[in-house]
């Protein structure tokens, strides 16, 4: 090969360029090590910034309502009147009703039907996914997001069964995404929009029952929103209508901001972690590179090269590696970051602005691509440059110490009696202690994060189980009107699979202060006093006693308003249509402030009386022997048929498993995201292990040749290398198990504080520990197989030529 080059560069710089280009495999490995870290940090920062900038921006663009009011039926004139209330910018009415729907051959499912007069309102702009966002006559447009999927497609013919039992067919003409509907609400149903004209044609009421209001000025100012809400409420009351529920929300800050914040916090932690791990990988790689180059360093010093010249050459080489890594990592990091943000935002139903490169990410990536390799390589480059010519040329290495103490010594002495080949693997493992430590650190961290992710998953599942018991039974039934509890119970118990029925009443109360001002709204549920569906883990006090009136067990989220509230204290509570009364707090249970207003439990008999429906209920929770979603769905079909046969009209029937599945899908999203990060770290870890094993094999080529000379077969050589990899993997597993506890705890704190706004009780699960054991064994073997194969393929002649 003739490589005539013009003398544009001095020979030493030619060498630098050729080192870079000539040994592509090595360059690839070093660049890959740097790129992984630089890419990961770029992805994390890009994702962080995009989420931060776009999450609320996308929400604000949708112009969600500041005030949502559940009230008695009203018409467009009332809407016009509300729009005249001071500080009201716009108002909109909707007719919301629950219907049962199905496509031909499918099972029935519950759908909230939102009837609107037209689609001209600016409130709650939706994004069209497919088809149109505006339904025509006998058409519906279905809302769809990550958590709410009906399975309906544009063009599907859907049958609607209204609460009066009438059935009508409509066509799905569009799929839309509605950010305001993606907020956490375990009971939330899928919904679709329909025109009032269609409802009218189907013989349904065309009155509104839900009022949406937007305020003038700052849509994020909750105080002014509350003031406007009070005025609107007064206006409605003046018209003789009752107000059943009011929700006030910011139109500038997404209710899912906490999810976004959680993800971003986790991203930051993982970013720092990835940076550290990537740095260790880079240190190992560059150490190995310098070791390979030691002889050439010796030659340069032999022919006049001084330390600073040698250092300069290798630092430039490392800068070149960094530059290549940067060129690769910046676009990849930006794209992956945006995609990650998109994934997280989609989960929350949020939309992002267009793709863009984040300058801060590029800046940090640039720093990382150059500073970390330079810092990582400074020690090896410096000591390499200072090495004596004789040391460099004779390949004498003095940093291998075989003396060991403690447990390792005892183990190796014990092993020595049985098998020298395994003894070689064990002693080799601890031969390059610095390199081993760095590899152990990387793989251990990967393992610990991996296990922590499963612990967090377990913890969140635990919270979810705790949470969902407040909202559901195996099947939750909503009837069109109140029926006598005994009749319904009797009817339902006739359905095969039903083993228990509980009537749950509910009331929306308000907590008042001494000045008769509303402190907070209170959602009061009233299960039977001996309910089997609630197993509250009370933090203080006790559960309700039979026939105990004006007594409540309240969620700890009340502490936001009454920090020192304890069992035995009193609250002034007003129920709709009743005067305010003094209630006694008898117990406090933990709950998530994420879900807004405090919730409370009171005795069923008392609440049903206060609601003027004694011994009656519309809502029933059914206990069954159907555990999984499909058998619960079958049970629903049986219940629905049986109720219809008995002339009872069910408005809503929900499977507990289905609700749980929907709710846990949000957790799964977070877990998937965490797992992606853990896998990224595992990739860094296994890359580190592969690098280490390759370096070990390369440096021990001569010893492998000697082993071959004295009778070691291919299998024996491979076994030696793979055993070493496995030992390292298993050591990291043991340490990872220990380290996973503090990491789990730290992640639980971060996720708890940001996502749940409460502490997340840590639930340690063996799943992650066992799964990582399997994974680390596989990773160790895979990481060792290639170097082992290379080792086994070496002929002794090559080995002798290696000297």
């Amino acid at each position, binding site marked *: 090969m003739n490589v005539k080059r013009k003398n544009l560069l001095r*020979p030493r710089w*030619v060498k630098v360029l050729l080192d870079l280009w000539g040994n592509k495999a090595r360059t690839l490995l070093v660049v890959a090590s740097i790129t992984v870290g630089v890419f990961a940090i770029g992805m994390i920062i890009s994702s962080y910034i995009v989420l931060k900038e776009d999450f609320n921006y996308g929400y604000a663009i949708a112009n969600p309502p500041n005030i949502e009011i559940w009230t008695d039926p009203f018409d467009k004139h009332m809407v016009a009147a509300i729009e005249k209330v001071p500080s009201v910018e716009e108002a909109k009415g909707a007719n919301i009703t629950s219907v049962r729907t199905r496509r031909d051959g499918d099972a029935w499912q519950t759908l909230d039907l939102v009837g609107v007069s037209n689609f001209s309102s600016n409130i709650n702009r939706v994004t069209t996914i497919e088809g149109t966002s505006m339904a025509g006559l006998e058409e519906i447009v279905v809302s769809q997001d990550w958590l709410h999927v009906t399975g309906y497609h544009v063009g599907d013919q859907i049958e609607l069964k209204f609460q009066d039992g009438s059935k009508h067919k409509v066509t799905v003409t569009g799929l839309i995404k509605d950010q305001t509907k993606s907020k956490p609400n375990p009971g939330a149903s899928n919904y679709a929009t329909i025109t009032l004209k269609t409802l009218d044609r189907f013989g349904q009421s065309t009155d509104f029952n839900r009022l949406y209001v937007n305020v003038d000025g700052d849509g994020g100012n909750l105080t002014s929103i509350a003031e406007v809400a009070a005025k609107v409420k007064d206006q409605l009351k003046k018209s003789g209508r009752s107000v059943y529920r009011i929700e006030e929300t910011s139109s500038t800050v997404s209710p899912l901001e906490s999810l976004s914040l959680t993800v971003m916090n986790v991203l930051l932690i993982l970013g720092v972690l990835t940076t550290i791990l990537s740095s260790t990988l880079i240190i190992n790689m560059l150490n190995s590179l310098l070791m390979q180059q030691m002889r050439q360093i010796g030659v340069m010093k032999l022919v006049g090269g001084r330390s600073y010249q040698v250092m300069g050459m290798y630092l430039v080489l490392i800068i070149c590696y960094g530059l290549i890594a940067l060129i690769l990592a910046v676009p990849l990091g930006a794209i992956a970051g945006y995609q990650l943000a998109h994934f997280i935002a989609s989960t929350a139903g949020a939309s992002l602005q267009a793709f863009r490169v984040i300058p801060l990410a590029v800046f940090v990536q640039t720093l990382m691509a150059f500073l970390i390799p330079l810092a990582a390589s400074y020690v090896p480059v410096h000591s390499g440059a200072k090495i004596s010519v*004789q040391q460099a040329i004779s390949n004498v290495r003095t940093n291998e110490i075989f003396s060991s103490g403690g447990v390792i010594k005892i183990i190796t002495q014990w092993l020595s009696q049985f098998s020298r080949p395994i003894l070689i693997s064990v002693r080799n493992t601890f031969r390059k202690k610095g390199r081993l430590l760095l590899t152990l650190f990387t793989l251990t961290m990967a393992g610990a994060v991996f296990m922590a992710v499963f612990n967090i998953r377990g913890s969140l599942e635990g919270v979810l189980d705790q949470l969902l018991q407040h909202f559901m039974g195996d099947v939750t039934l909503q009837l069109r009107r109140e029926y006598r509890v005994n009749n319904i119970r009797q009817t339902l118990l006739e359905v095969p699979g039903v083993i228990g029925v509980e009537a749950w009443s509910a009331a929306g109360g308000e907590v008042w202060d001494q000045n008769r001002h509303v402190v907070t709204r209170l959602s009061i549920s009233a299960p039977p006093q001996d309910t089997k569906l609630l197993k509250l883990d009370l933090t203080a006090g006790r559960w309700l006693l039979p026939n105990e009136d004006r007594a409540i067990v309240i969620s700890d989220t009340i502490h936001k308003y009454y920090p020192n509230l304890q069992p035995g204290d009193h609250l002034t509570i007003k129920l709709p249509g009743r005067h305010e009364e003094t209630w006694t707090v008898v117990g406090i249970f933990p709950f998530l402030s994420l879900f807004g207003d405090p919730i409370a439990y009171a005795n069923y008999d008392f609440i049903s009386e206060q609601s003027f429906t004694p011994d009656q209920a519309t809502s029933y929770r059914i206990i069954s022997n159907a555990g999984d979603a499909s058998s619960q769905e079958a049970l629903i079909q049986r219940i629905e048929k049986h109720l219809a046969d008995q002339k009872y009209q069910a408005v809503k029937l929900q499977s507990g498993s289905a609700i749980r599945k929907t709710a846990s899908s949000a957790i799964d999203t977070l877990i998937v995201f965490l797992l992606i990060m853990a896998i990224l770290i595992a990739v860094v870890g296994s890359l580190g292990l592969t690098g280490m094993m390759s370096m070990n094999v390369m440096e021990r080529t001569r010893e492998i040749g000697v082993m071959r000379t004295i009778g070691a077969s291919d299998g024996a050589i491979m076994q030696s290398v793979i055993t070493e990899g496995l030992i390292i993997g298993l050591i990291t597993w043991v340490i990872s198990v220990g380290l996973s506890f503090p990491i789990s705890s730290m992640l639980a704190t971060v996720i708890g504080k940001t996502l749940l706004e409460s502490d997340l009780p840590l639930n340690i699960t063996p799943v992650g520990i066992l799964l990582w054991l399997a994974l680390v064994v596989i990773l160790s073997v895979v990481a060792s197989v290639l170097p082992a194969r290379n080792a086994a393929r070496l002929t002794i002649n090559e080995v002798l030529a290696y000297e």
Partner: protein
Amino acid sequence: MTGKPHKIILEVQNVVKNYSSGGTLFTALNQVNIDIQQGEFLGITGKSGAGKTTLLNVISGVTDLTTGSIFFHGGGDPSSHTPVPIHELNEDQLALWRGQNVGVVYQSFELMPTLSLVENVMLPPDLSGTYQSQTTNQRALELLDIVGIADHAHKIPAHISGGQKQRVAIARAMVNNPSIIIADEPTGSLDSLTAETIIQIFEQLVEQGKTVVMVTHDESFIPRFSRWLQIKDGLVTIPAKNGPKPSQQEVAESRFSGPVQIYLEAANASAKKQPDPAVQPLNAPAVVLRDVDKVYENAAGKFVALKKINLQLNYGRFISIVGKSGSGKSTLLNMITGIDHPTLGEVAVANEHIYQMSESKRAQWRGRNLGVVFQFFQLLPMLTLLENVMLPMDYCNVYPKRERRSRAVELLDLVGVADQADKLPTSVSNGQQQSAAIARALATDPSIIVADEPTGNLDSRSADNILNLFRGLTQRGKTVLIVTHDHSITQRTDQTITIADGEIIDPTIVQAMPFLSHGQMLEATHQVEKQKVAPRETILHQGNAVEYFYMIASGGVEIKTSHGRNETWLASLGPGQFFGETELLNGGHAIALVQSDEQGVELLRLPKQSFFNLIDSSTLTHQTLNELAAIRRAENIEKTGAARL
């Protein structure tokens, strides 16, 4: 030699260099004093491990001193320069000093693999601050032209041969116009023709006024040096100041007891070579090579490492393979151990055709049947000596597990290092490491032990112990095959195989004409004709013209003179001895009758013209044969006269 020494350029004063090996102090250089003079070609010879490379490293500032001093006097007028105390310079100062004043050439070339040849030569100016793009490039090309490799200037080192690499290394050493060139075994990896070219380049440099210091173990170069120093166990044995250049005869006498004596003793030599009668060699061949060729091919072209090797080695013998570096002796050993593949031909070891096995299977076979000993011991550093010895038993699954430890202890005891059994290799001396390596080679009780330069890295006392150990093994029935370039070792073995440029030199030629270079011996091997003579058959008739130089391969001859009916016995000659030289050197007619003895004889006969060509190219051989012819003629006259009386 035209370059006359006229001033001291480098002074080595009372230099001592100690190394620590296995916790014990080892003196590599002991009170060395040398004045190196400008324009001299200083040769330093010694066996492996003698300290010659250490001396060179000390001179070039590559190794620091334990005590002593080295002063550099520069290249110009001594009075205008303050001597540079090399021993006081730090690493960077040394690098700059070397770059500007010293050119270093190593046996292993040490070229930068990624740079082209011209860039390699341009590197020292770049690093030592004298680089000017065009000028340096021009000079590098000129130097490559001088060393005869300008045509390949833009190739990379991997694409040229070893000899070409060494030429590049010399060009690189000269690029900064240094005062002194230091060369460590520069011909060590080269064939004899290329080695000669390199030496000629050095001689030209000396003629141009450069100083060349070269270390080598090849004593055939001694006559080429303008001054010769010898080093043994760290001691320079010839006075450093103004040491006289030895004559060729002195060189020969330093290797042997005296050239004529060698010839006279040749008859006894074959008797000496008989194995110990107590341990009769088995008739079965341990190793058989048939028509083995080994050709290496790379971008630089084909290189024939072994050519038509036919060899049979029997069990129970102590055999040496000798040859210069690069002659192919290690390749031959690799063929026998199954470490490398022959390009053509068959290899059978212990009746196994080892190249019909997979590499993996061959490794196991080797573990069971061959014990391999390396020059650098190659004990696994993470295992104790005891564990190292147990390892082959584990790999080959021989001996019950519970017996392996006791067997290993026994073997370590046999080689005299049982008390070091639990130490790591780095904690014992080189000699002890090699002893343990031999114990490891014996672990699976193989019938054949092969050793590649086993004493090459040991001091003379340790080397002696190791050779005794090998001799002991042959007495236990083992076959020991060692590769060495140390001729003195061959005197302790039963059989010697001499190899040059990939071919085996006929042992009869080696014995008969030991002062030929290996290249000349090989040439003779190519030119001899074999002749088998029946018992009591006449080979030369007195008075007839003699057309050949005869060497006795086996059997014997009787030399007689006849005068009428009277026959006078003059001499009996045996294997390794020769006849016909007296006639060829003195007129060409037989002065006596030569007849095979009662068992017949196998002869190698070298045609007259080839004989003259050979002795003309080897002054020492010519001179020695002349002297021997004179002695034989005198003996002839004396015995004939006595018979007449």
